């Protein structure tokens, strides 16, 4: 049963996180549209990077949480970890979709094509398909604990694609640009400091948004469990 004091405390923490996230996004918007200078070769369109890269970061982070929670669920068999994995997968799919939409919008004026089947783009699309399948598995199958176990395995396998996505631009010749933040010369050496700062602010805003959404979704899933438990109790007592 949920403790009312704990619920109140959670709500207070949630409110602080809402404000922090709002402020971080405000700072990001100011940095993206006012502070950062326009890139010389690509022009104004390059500013899409400040949405595209943080969305990619958020989705990879979300899928990492799915990976970790799924391992812990299979190991400890605690429903809590299954809830974390499910909530995180949903957020990851939303932001991976945003990556797959903003990428072509950026690519069209620069590459002259909405989409090319290069290693980075194709492997990201495969990642999206895997986690969409993960969410479909969760909604389609009825067997509770078996469903959670199958989903956990898929959640782990799906994450193995992420290192491949990261290194794909180094292993093959691709249209997609090489990494600019983490390079062989060091972190942030391949970027102008103002661009790096703007990207950093945007990444912080998106990360805060992830924790905010996770908090809400996890509470929601727990409430759903509680309602199901009460319903079961009512049915058995009748």
């Amino acid at each position, binding site marked *: 049963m949920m403790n009312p004091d704990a619920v109140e405390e959670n709500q207070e923490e949630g409110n602080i996180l809402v404000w922090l996230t709002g402020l971080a996004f405000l700072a990001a918007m100011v940095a993206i549209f006012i502070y950062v200078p326009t890139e010389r070769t690509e*022009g*104004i*369109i390059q*500013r*899409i990077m400040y*949405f*595209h890269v943080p*969305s990619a970061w958020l989705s990879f982070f979300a899928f990492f949480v799915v990976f970790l929670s799924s391992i812990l669920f299979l190991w400890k068999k605690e429903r809590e970890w299954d809830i974390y994995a499910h909530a995180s997968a949903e957020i990851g799919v*939303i932001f991976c*979709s*945003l990556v797959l*939409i*903003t990428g072509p*919008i*950026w690519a*069209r*004026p620069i590459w002259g094509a909405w989409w090319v089947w290069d290693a980075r783009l194709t492997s990201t699309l495969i990642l999206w398909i895997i986690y969409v399948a993960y969410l479909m598995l969760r909604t389609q199958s009825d067997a509770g604990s078996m469903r959670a176990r199958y989903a956990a395995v898929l959640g782990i396998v799906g994450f193995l694609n992420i290192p491949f996505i990261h290194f794909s631009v180094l292993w093959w010749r691709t249209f997609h640009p090489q990494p600019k933040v983490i390079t062989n010369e060091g972190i942030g050496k391949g970027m102008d400091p103002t661009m790096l700062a703007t990207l950093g602010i945007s990444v912080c805003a998106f990360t805060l*948004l992830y924790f905010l*959404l996770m908090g*809400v*979704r996890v509470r*929601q899933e727990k*409430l*759903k469990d509680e*309602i199901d438990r*009460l*319903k079961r109790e*009512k049915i058995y007592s009748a």
Partner: protein
Amino acid sequence: MDNLGFLFAANVVVWGGIIYYVYTIRQRNRALEKDLELLKETLSKEG
């Protein structure tokens, strides 16, 4: 469409996506609250 149009489109997609997702979460919350109220009502009638 000039480059400003593409930038605008990307912005609309990102904000639209986030707002739509928050909206679906809110809808699910409302459905759960309704479910809980109904359950409480039924339990109080019985007990």
